[in-house]
């Protein structure tokens, strides 16, 4: 990290290779689209590298990068919403690699609001703690916990309704 901060390209490339997959998967989890995940993750790294000098290297790089990626993904999704005549599908797209056996859950996650979906995918898809999510999204931990609880409640209700039907 220290070498990368001094502008060492090899060290920066190592850092990139170590975190690229996680950053991309976080971007995909939020945007639900591979092409958008490519752009968001790339943009996240670009912004992170441009700001490396300001990064406090006593803290872990991963959550800081995820914060940038998550916020960039949210910005892009919101911009798309504003620009699109129609409401965009607020959900992971029909990526075939998603568990075909859990389509009901996938569909329920797709129905969550953007704010709730983001905390769900960062918690269960990326494995971040509520505290890390709170830092990443610049929210109080209580808000993250409450969004998670409400999202789980909504998912549970959706799945129950489907089961009854």
């Amino acid at each position, binding site marked *: 990290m220290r070498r*990368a901060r*001094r*502008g*060492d*390209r090899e060290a*920066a*490339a190592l850092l*990139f*290779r170590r975190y*690229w*997959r996680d950053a*991309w*998967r976080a971007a*995909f*989890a939020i945007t639900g689209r*591979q*092409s*958008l*995940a*490519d*752009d968001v*993750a*790339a*943009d996240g*790294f*670009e912004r*992170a*590298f*441009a700001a*490396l*000098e300001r990064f406090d290297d006593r803290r872990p790089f991963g959550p800081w990068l995820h914060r940038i990626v998550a916020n960039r993904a949210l910005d*892009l999704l919101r*911009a*798309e919403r504003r*620009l*699109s005549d129609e409401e965009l599908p607020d959900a992971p797209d029909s*990526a075939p*690699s*998603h*568990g075909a056996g*859990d389509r009901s*859950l*996938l569909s329920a*996650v797709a129905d969550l609001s953007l704010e709730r979906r983001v905390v*769900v*995918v960062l918690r*269960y*898809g990326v494995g971040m703690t509520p505290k890390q999510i709170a830092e990443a999204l610049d929210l109080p931990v209580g808000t993250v916990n409450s969004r998670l609880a409400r999202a*789980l409640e909504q*998912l*549970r209700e959706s*799945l129950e309704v489907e089961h009854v039907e």
Partner: protein
Amino acid sequence: MSSELERRLETMLAEAPEPDPGAGEEALHWALRVLQPVAAPRRGMRTAVLVFAGAVVLLVIAAGSLAAAGALHVSIGAKSKPPPPPAPELRLPKGANGVAAIVNGQLSVATRGGRTQLPASAAALSPRALYVAVGSGDSLVALAPDGRRAWSHRAGGKVVAIAWAPDGFRIAYVVHAGRRFVLHVIYGNGVNDTPIDRSVRAVRPSWRGDSLAFAYVGGGGRAVVYDVGHESRRVVAIRPPVTAVAFAPSGDALALEGPKAVSLVNGSAHRQINSASVGAFGWLNGRLAVAVPGLNSNLIRVFAPDGALSGSSRAHGIVKAITPKLVVVQRGETLVAGHTTLLTVPRSATVRDLQIG
């Protein structure tokens, strides 16, 4: 229920796809571009560097003396690879917001906000030259004038032609995907990419002045006008193959270049306005200008949007491009626009996507 639900969520989200390796390499390239330069060495290190530099200078002086005396043959860099020629630096014409050109595959951009250079397969300035859209690798990239990347979109192939709508809201671009050229439209902020036609020619589209439609050359060399509002297309009744299209800056007039003629379509009326071979054509101050090649100079014939000849003049050089307000002429090794020498390049250099915004 919740813990079971949480396990299901983890399992489902763990099945997310893996990133494409190509996307990673490209992202790495762009990320390294913004890496800050190495910080200045500390004092102790600086002293060591100065001592080393002094020693090198003394060695060079000694070697030079020996070489001058014939006692030592010096061959510096004989085995090293010659550096690539620097991309020519463009000069901004007076009154222009920006100028861009790709010379031998290297894009040069000069705007009021800065200048940048990079390898590119296609380029288009945004309105008022606030950004430049660039074909870079397999991506369409928007760069700010200082070279910073505003956004990037994976195009899935080499981008060969780009046209930015006059209102800045959309970009039409042609990408070489497999054996075909595919036309796409994307929003000016890099989102909402939509394929429009999966078999087109590698020709730059041209936007109508109101930004609600653009012309392109489809499969078979036919000119097509695509209406972005109604998502409809209309084939222009001009005999193919069409090799270039240019909408007038206002109104519906559309100029089309064929192998040996320029035609003007205005509503349902169309007429062939030039039967000689064409060097360059474009809209100049709202009129259609057609350069007819001569030996050392070009005749520029100017037509009103209804096709009536409204004048002609002789360019002092070979016309390379006709931009909305300036004609770019090659004189020897210089490209000149108005009173500004844009750049100096060898005659053999390939210059494309030359634009003044």
